[in-house]
């Protein structure tokens, strides 16, 4: 919980203060910040949802992205060393938000068509709806949030496990086993280092995937045709 509190405080500080004076000609810090914000804004939100709908859902999608990113990154920050997303609470909350968002988007725009598009995909023999509709219902309204949650949670848990394993093994080989076993500690430490860098990639990737999928779900809910 303390880690999450810390992440929230850091996020709020960085983005509040960082965007307090956005100049037309950016400085170094502003350029970096704008690179991040612009990446989420253009590559995830606007590219998926378009200019108009993208602006509507931009705040929630952006906070989703940066909250996940911040929480993920705590997994490799020294003294924190565990991701805020490696306990199920936050991923579940975020997945529920995503779920509510795309259902809200669909019902707000065209309730009947949203239901038809998600449960009765066009171009299918009506007889097959007996099979297709339950499948669509499960995949759209149940499996989507579940997969979002589990994907994020397990990536973070697995990353944490790997790091713990590598560094515990280093500790064990170097001090407990002793002697020639100590040589193994070099290998395990190198793996630990590599997985730390890998976790950096995974942290960004999972934030990207989660936000992109939410944007895609909203886009599908808003789409006129399936």
């Amino acid at each position: 919980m303390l880690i999450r509190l810390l992440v929230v405080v850091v996020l709020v500080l960085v983005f509040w203060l960082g965007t307090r004076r956005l100049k037309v000609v950016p400085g170094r810090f502003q350029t970096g910040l704008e690179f991040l914000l612009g990446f989420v804004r253009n590559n995830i939100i606007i590219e998926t949802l378009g200019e108009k709908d993208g602006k509507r859902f931009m705040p929630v999608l952006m906070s989703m992205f940066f909250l996940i990113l911040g929480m993920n990154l705590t997994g490799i920050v020294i003294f924190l060393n565990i991701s805020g997303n490696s306990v199920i609470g936050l991923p579940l909350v975020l997945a529920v938000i995503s779920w509510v968002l795309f259902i809200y988007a669909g019902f707000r725009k065209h309730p009947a068509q949203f239901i038809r598009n998600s449960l009765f995909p066009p171009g299918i023999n009506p007889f097959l709806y007996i099979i297709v509709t339950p499948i669509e219902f499960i995949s759209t309204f149940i499996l989507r949030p579940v997969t979002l949650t589990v994907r994020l949670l397990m990536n973070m848990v697995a990353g944490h496990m790997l790091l713990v394993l590598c560094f515990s093994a280093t500790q064990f080989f170097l001090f407990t086993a002793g002697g020639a076993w100590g040589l193994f500690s070099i290998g395990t430490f190198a793996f630990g280092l590599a997985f730390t860098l890998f976790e950096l990639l995974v942290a960004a990737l999972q934030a990207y995937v989660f936000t992109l999928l939410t944007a895609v779900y909203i886009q599908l809910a808003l789409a006129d045709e399936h």
Partner: protein
Amino acid sequence: MHNAFLAVAAEESPNPLLPALPDLIWGAVAFIIVFVVFAWKVVPRLNAALDARRDAIEGGIERAEAAQAEASAARDNYTAQLAEARAEAGRIREQARADGQKIIAELKQQAQVEADRITATAHAQIEAERSAALVSLRAEVGALALDLASGVVGEALNDDAKSTALVDRFLADLEASETAGKAGK
């Protein structure tokens, strides 16, 4: 090694897929805080900054276009003025040439008139001199003829009305024949 694994296992001993209530609550609170900040400050600021930048760039392009239009207008104006000046110069040159020709023609005509006048004067003078010569010649020819006749006849014919009449008749005949010859010529 066993201790480390046991510690990890103990940490993860509750099923990680079953959420604890405080976990959910605090996760939601974290999201809400971040969402409020983003919705309230970050995204509007970001959009405002991006719009401002786009305006600045578009404004720059517009200014550049305006400057270019102005420059091309100035160039057109300059070209037009230049053409006008050339036309003006040509016109003035034509005018000057025409004026020059007119002056020359006038001078020629004046010279011609003057020459004619001089020629006419000369003719008149020659005529007058010829008449004078003719008159004086006539008197002298009369005297000479009388002298000659006096010599031939041997007697004085001077101051005689008869002789004077003779001479006059002779001269009149002479003149008549001369006139006839002139006419016949």
